[in-house]
């Protein structure tokens, strides 16, 4: 932003102070939230279970093994010290070892996370590309049958269980119509053929230039991504509609009409333009929710992502893996939340 010549030195100093304060606040809040996340996972892992040692060694372990584990886990120390150690471990990437896979949890996460990101990203693309225009159209024609249709569609997005939709989708589009590939990320005879560069199978296939694998990966991706996309579409369309209605009732929109601006420009330039920052926040939130929501969809589609890893661990009481996955998704959640908040402050001229 250009600073106009009429600004006095103290004003500029105040602005710089505000900025520094803003950045400080941002860092502090993010750190605090992250600490909160760790506190909750710590609470879940060490305080809620009646005996965390038994959770690790099983209830048939001998007294010596039990005691050794207890000390190894640091459970003989005060809770506050245990928490500090826990924070230190997490910050250094030590999430413990998974009982299920026998590997360090951090390695598992690195292996499974890209699949989840790929599915959620495809989902959010569908949600944004369809949801935003739908919300704008619904608001521009508020009360029409089109608006009602979009509204009911949106409410369905709040009411249909993702796992159920996945099952029905598989039954109809895979088993029934044969339009898409079945569960899994790729057919078995294509597995492991492209070198993993990004971990995103579609991107890796493009990099390797292998179009058959790309096609196969897409045919596996399209159904789960569409299901996720439907949920984010519902949310995004609904929020877009309500932001737009709010803008369209403002006096400056009437001003634009008085000037003779076309209805199309009134809607997109005057009403939509100001809400784009709010929308980025909504989309960010929606993306975070998709990463989370993919848990249920991954199970149905046997998708080798973080959700599948998490639920497998859950059923085997593999708490290190459960908490590791929780911290990972929670961190992504926090980062997206905070970034969209920051974006809002930076881009809205009124908040400067």
């Amino acid at each position: 932003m250009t600073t106009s010549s009429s600004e006095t030195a103290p004003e500029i100093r105040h602005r710089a102070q505000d900025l520094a304060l803003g950045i400080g606040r941002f860092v502090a809040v993010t750190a605090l939230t992250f600490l909160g996340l760790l506190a909750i996972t710590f609470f879940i892992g060490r305080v809620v279970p009646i005996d965390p040692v038994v959770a690790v060694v099983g209830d048939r372990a001998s007294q010596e093994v039990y005691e050794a584990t207890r000390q190894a886990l640091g459970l003989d120390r005060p809770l506050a010290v245990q928490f500090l150690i826990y924070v230190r471990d997490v910050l250094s990437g030590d999430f413990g070892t998974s009982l299920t896979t026998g590997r360090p949890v951090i390695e598992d996460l690195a292996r499974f996370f890209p699949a989840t990101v790929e599915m959620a990203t495809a989902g959010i693309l569908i949600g944004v590309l369809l949801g935003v225009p739908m919300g704008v159209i619904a608001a521009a024609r508020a009360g029409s049958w089109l608006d009602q249709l979009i509204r009911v569609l949106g409410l369905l997005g709040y009411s249909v269980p993702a796992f159920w939709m996945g099952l029905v989708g598989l039954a109809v589009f895979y088993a029934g119509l044969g339009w898409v590939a079945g569960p899994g990320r790729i057919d078995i005879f294509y597995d492991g053929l492209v070198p993993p560069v990004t971990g995103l199978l579609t991107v890796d296939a493009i990099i390797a230039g292998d179009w058959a694998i790309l096609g196969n990966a897409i045919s596996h991706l399209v159904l789960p991504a569409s299901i996720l996309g439907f949920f984010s579409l519902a949310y995004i369309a609904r929020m877009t509609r309500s932001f737009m209605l709010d803008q369209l009732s403002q006096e400056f929109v009437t001003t634009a009409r008085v000037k003779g601006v076309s209805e199309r420009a009134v809607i997109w330039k005057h009403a939509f333009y100001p809400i784009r920052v709010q929308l980025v926040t909504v989309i960010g939130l929606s993306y975070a929710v998709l990463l989370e929501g993919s848990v249920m969809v991954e199970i149905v589609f046997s998708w080798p992502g973080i959700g599948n890893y998490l639920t497998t661990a859950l059923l085997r009481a593999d708490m290190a893996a459960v908490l590791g996955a929780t911290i990972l998704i929670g961190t992504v959640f926090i980062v997206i939340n905070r970034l969209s908040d920051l974006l809002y402050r930076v881009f809205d001229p009124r908040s400067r």
Partner: protein
Amino acid sequence: MPPLLELKNLRVSFPGPRGPVEVVSGVSFDLGRERLGIVGESGSGKSLTGRSILRLLRPPAKVSVDRLRFDGADLLAMSEREMRQVRGARISMVMQDPRYSLNPVMTVGDQIAEALKVHERIPRREVRERVMDMLDKVRIHDPERVMKLYPHEVSGGMGQRVMIAMMLIPKPDILIADEPTSALDVSVQAQVLDLIEEMIAEYGMGLILISHDLDLVARYCDRVLVMNQGEVVEELEAGGLHRAQHPYTRALLESVPRIDETRKVLPVMDRGAGVGT
């Protein structure tokens, strides 16, 4: 020669819980290149009348009018596209509060330029020059700087001058000013109204000044319509306020305290059976 604007039997209603409620009931007037004032209290229908002329009211408002002609053309028969050629370019409107009527995320310069660009195809350079000229005309002395400002960065009086510049830049034939000063401080009010008066005279335009302030309208207009509960109760020459006959107009005139007030009790309107308002 027909008048510039003809309005006959305008009616506006809104749906209410007990059937439609009529808020403008049969307003008619003609306007030439003159200054017409419309005065009334809140709920008298004066603003809706102004907006109906530009066909700005949207459902659930219902508008019916027998005749709405402008410069020989029937505004009623126009498509929405044709109507847009009229809005801004031929009939324009200054609204009440620049804090709400200016787009908060567009710079002042862009908003004024837009008013020009929707009606004329002109090169960017020329747009910029004309915007600067216009800002200069509304007595903004450093247009360079002001053009880059966002509405929240300008004062109320300055915002209203920006609004006037924006509405007058395509040189319309009629300007509707809807309470253009009621959101401003007293010391700025006169400046803004003087500016409107001057521009109207310079461009030879017609003016419809809508206000709740009878004194103010009488000062800036040639003719005054007094509205009450959706109807025009009296039409007056601006110089002849003291000849007002209608009890409502008389009450409006007399219930306002004067700056050298010595009355012990102000006369109030007889509202019939209702006790107090």
